[in-house]
């Protein structure tokens, strides 16, 4: 019973994320594209949830769907001079197409060659507290490096957008 429900949920979410990504790329309206991106992020959060990664799913929803996509939409709407500018014609360049085909081929090759590990789900689901303990003991150094990188990016963004007062 539970496995059937999980299976159905997985196919729905997988369809939603891949379909959303395709729609995002194919829609001509940038605002619609941003909303499709949001949908893809949410579907990804749902996939994490199916894997019992509750914390990761929530952070995905909170940070990517809740904050990053708001930022994307905000930027799009701030930079659109007129409402009609949101709809752009499709201008495929041969170079871009060739690059996409090359990338797609390389990815396909890599995935088909790779030995994907088949992990077994642990008997008991780790809690958020367990997650925090591992993150701040075993993975403390990578965590600190990541936060340092983000800090540098933040300071850089502030410096860059300082304008004339610099």
């Amino acid at each position, binding site marked *: *019973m*539970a496995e059937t*429900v999980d299976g159905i949920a997985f196919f729905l979410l997988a369809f939603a994320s891949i379909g959303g990504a395709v729609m995002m790329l194919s829609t001509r309206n940038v605002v619609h594209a941003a909303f499709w991106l949001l949908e893809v992020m949410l579907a990804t959060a749902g996939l994490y949830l199916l894997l019992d990664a*509750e914390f990761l799913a929530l952070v995905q929803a909170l940070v990517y769907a809740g*904050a990053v*996509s*708001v930022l994307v939409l*905000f930027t799009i*709407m701030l930079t659109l001079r007129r409402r009609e500018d949101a709809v752009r014609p499709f201008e495929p360049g041969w170079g871009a197409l060739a690059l996409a085909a090359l990338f797609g081929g390389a990815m396909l090759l890599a995935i088909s060659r790779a030995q994907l590990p088949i992990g077994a789900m642990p008997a008991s689901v780790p809690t958020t507290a367990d997650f925090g303990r591992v993150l701040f003991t075993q993975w403390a150094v990578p965590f600190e490096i990541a936060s340092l990188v983000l800090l540098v990016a933040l300071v850089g963004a502030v410096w860059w957008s300082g304008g004339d007062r610099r």
Partner: protein
Amino acid sequence: MSPLAVSVLKVLACLGLMLANGVVMIWMLRKVLGHLHLRYGPLEMGPSGILQTTMDVLKLLTKEDVMPGAADKALFWLAPLAVFVPSLAAYAALPFSSTLRATSLDTGLLYTFAALSFVPLGILMAGWASGNKWSLLGGMRAAGQQIAYEVPLLLSVLPIVMLTGTTDLGRLVEAQSGVWAGFLPRWFIFDPLLWPTFLVFVVAALIESNQTPFDMSEAESELVAGFATEYSAMKFGLLFLSEFSNHFIISALAVTLFFGGWLLPWVPEGVSASLAPVTFILKTYVGIFVMMWIRGTFPRVRIDTLMELGWKRLIPISLALVVVMGIVIKAMPALARVVG
């Protein structure tokens, strides 16, 4: 019963609570604001106008559903749902008593905030889809506000999480059971260390839930009705139902985090336990009353002052509070070891 049926029933129960809350709150809003403004509010329908909201719902259901010509049709339809669904989802983790809640989540606090963080997206969607300058401005304000206030709101509850070591809403309430000095309930609101936290939380939460001194996305004195300008009939009804439900959720969160949730002090355990959901809902409505009181008292702030308050004051303050709390938590045991 199969687990699927139970889940469906739970969702329906949350929906029922949300609808009932909408009806109660609209009546309450009119009466409370009316009396705050020295007028009566609705009087005609039923005693003290108690049936006014029911009539309003009937009116909304039978009104014409107008679709503006310049609207982005698909998004215009989707936006009320994009506001409504996260608002409904946020009920899932609220602890009405130690057992009565839709789901017991290890990360309940984070979940509720995640659900609430989608509401401005729906508002932005509504603002864009309406094809109207006022609406778009309202939507943009909602988004800008959210970017500015999401961070202080999340940071403001962090000291409590650090203190209790859990984000499970039920366990956060249990951490507040018992009394200090024989009579003062151990609610976090009575902990002087958490007073600044509470202030930051209240301001950020009022802004996040679009309450009136900060309802920049609606601001009827500047933007007609903001993001809701072009909406009519039940689409408008859905937008406002969600707004009222967000007020309930924010108030319920404040009750859970600071006012001891379902706990009732000074009474025997058994009485407190049997009255738990009633206590929780009553406390929540007291919180809503205070929110309405603020709404009826303070004039609306300006959007630029609001943004300044968020970025330049609340974010640094809430960061400092987290650091102070960390030092206190680590220093207290060390101090006790030195003294003892």
